């Protein structure tokens, strides 16, 4: 998303991320990934519930080949990732995310609840939804 941010700005949109993770963990993640957009914190996940985002099951997490491959790839690039997983329940790896585009009228132009931990909205779809 870091590389995509200029294209998003050029398209006239802004970005807000919402996370259930802790303040410190989020801050470290942002620094590692060099993310340029703001993060809001929702440890209670009330906004996740309002947007219909659920926790995944085994198939969506560990038994999904795409998720397993991504987890291994991340682990090879970032040893801290495996330590993260080993930290246990304070990091809820079952919580699924989602990507939405909200128009100035307050209505959804795009809505994608992730089907698994490796499922993200394509940038092209987000940019198409941003256009008037």
């Amino acid at each position, binding site marked *: *998303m870091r590389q995509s941010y200029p294209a998003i700005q050029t*398209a*006239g*949109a*802004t*970005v*807000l*991320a*919402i*996370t259930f*993770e802790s*303040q410190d*963990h*989020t*801050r470290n*993640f*942002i620094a590692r990934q060099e993310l340029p957009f*703001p*993060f*809001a*914190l*929702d440890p209670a996940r*009330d*906004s*996740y*519930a*309002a*947007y*219909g*985002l*659920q926790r995944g099951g085994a198939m969506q997490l560990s038994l999904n080949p795409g998720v397993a491959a991504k*987890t291994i790839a991340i682990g090879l690039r*970032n040893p801290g*990732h495996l330590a*993260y*997983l080993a930290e246990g329940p304070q*990091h*809820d*790896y079952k*919580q*699924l*995310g*989602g*990507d*939405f*585009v*909200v*128009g*100035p009228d*307050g*209505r*959804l*132009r795009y*809505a994608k*609840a*992730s089907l698994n*931990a490796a499922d993200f909205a394509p940038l092209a779809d*987000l940019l198409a*939804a*941003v256009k008037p």
Partner: protein
Amino acid sequence: MARRLQVGDPAPDFTLPLLDGGPVNLSDYRDRPLILLFTRWLG
């Protein structure tokens, strides 16, 4: 748990604290389209 949202639905409002301080409301973003990213775990 809310039903799965669809294009055209009103986006549910929220008021949350920003990591860098201060509250943020969905209604703060009425001047331009907003890409709203809900994260999974930040590994």
